[in-house]
């Protein structure tokens, strides 16, 4: 008993770690809230082209992605394919996809939706131009050519 008493009167008392869980929990909640879990499984190989004059897309919730590139599975050939959500899609499916994206959001936000084209840099312009034409037809006019930051 006496030993304990000595200790407390001599040196500085140990810092209480009782609040440590609270601090950690706070950090935990922060990351839980900011985490976006649903990352699409890429079915195509994409190396983004580099550009220096880029704009950041601020609001992730208002961005829909179109992926174009050669399929990862070798059996599907080496022609570039388009991926919407989690599967390969044909050009005429874009209209429905745009509609679905708009239905998911509030009406006032619809004009603010950006369609971000994540296209492999080796792709020919043909498919990109076709996709752009489809987007125009569905009145999805705000697009973004996704790029990697050039150094």
């Amino acid at each position, binding site marked *: 008993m006496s030993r304990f008493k000595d200790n407390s009167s001599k040196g500085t008392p140990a810092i209480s*770690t009782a609040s*440590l*869980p609270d601090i*950690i*929990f706070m*950090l*935990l909640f922060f*990351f*839980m809230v*900011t*985490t*976006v*879990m649903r*990352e699409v499984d890429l079915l195509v190989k994409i190396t983004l*082209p*580099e*550009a*220096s*004059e*880029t*704009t*950041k*897309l*601020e609001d*992730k919730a208002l*961005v829909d992605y179109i992926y174009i590139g050669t399929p990862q599975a070798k059996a599907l050939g080496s022609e570039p394919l388009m991926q919407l959500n989690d599967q390969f899609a044909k050009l005429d499916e874009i209209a429905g996809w745009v509609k679905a994206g708009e239905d998911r959001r509030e009406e006032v936000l619809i004009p603010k939706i*950006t369609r*971000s*084209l994540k*296209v*492999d*840099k*080796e*792709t*020919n*312009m*043909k498919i*990109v*131009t076709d996709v*752009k*034409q489809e*987007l*125009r*037809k569905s*009145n*999805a*006019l*705000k*697009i*973004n*050519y*996704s*790029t990697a*930051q050039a150094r």
Partner: protein
Amino acid sequence: MLKKRKREGIQEINAGSMADIAFLLLIFFLVTTTMDTDAGILRLLPPVVEEEVDMQVNKRDVYEVLINDADMLLVEGEMMDIKDLRAGAKEFMTNPTNDIDLPERRRVTAAECNQKIGEYRSYVAGASDAEAKDGYQKALEKWEEKLEAVKLLGDFSELPPNAVISLQTGSKTSYDMYVRVQNELEAGIRELRDDLSKEKFGRKYSELDEKKDEDKALIKAVRLVYPQRVSEAEPVDVTKKS
């Protein structure tokens, strides 16, 4: 006293490991979080036009950039290296020597803006049907915007409304080349805006903050002088063009 309590009630659960559990969860979320935001070149596609409109566009108002299937550039009918494109786009936008092959920039003065605003105000008031009124209202707003810009920048010269950088590609052009060309054009315009903003406001255009109200007007004014005019026009098969 302590001993007595132990015997009576239930023992308190040790909360010492709580921090460890929380740490574990925290590390899991740290690893799974993707913080990176997507960046890229933003473009607006033109809406689909119902019927073919035969627009009379002056040749000097169009800066024609063609990329062929072999990723070579043809600008205004001449072969060009991509590193000269930025300067070319800037020259097109500014027309410093008043070249007759480049768009004619027109001076905008406060007096003219005021006069036009007055005119259109009376048109709007006197318009009989809604459609005409709408048209006048739009024109009025345009002139009001110009007046705002004149207040901030002083008299400036504006690009003709139909001046455009037209970018066309072949079907086998690589996307990489396309993005590089877009990037150069974007860079040209950004440099012009930066220079203007630096000269007038002492800050670069890219340093202006869109979220601040006082900067908003400045951005608008600079954009009016050097508008973003890269056309994502109807695809034309470049290879078939002679």
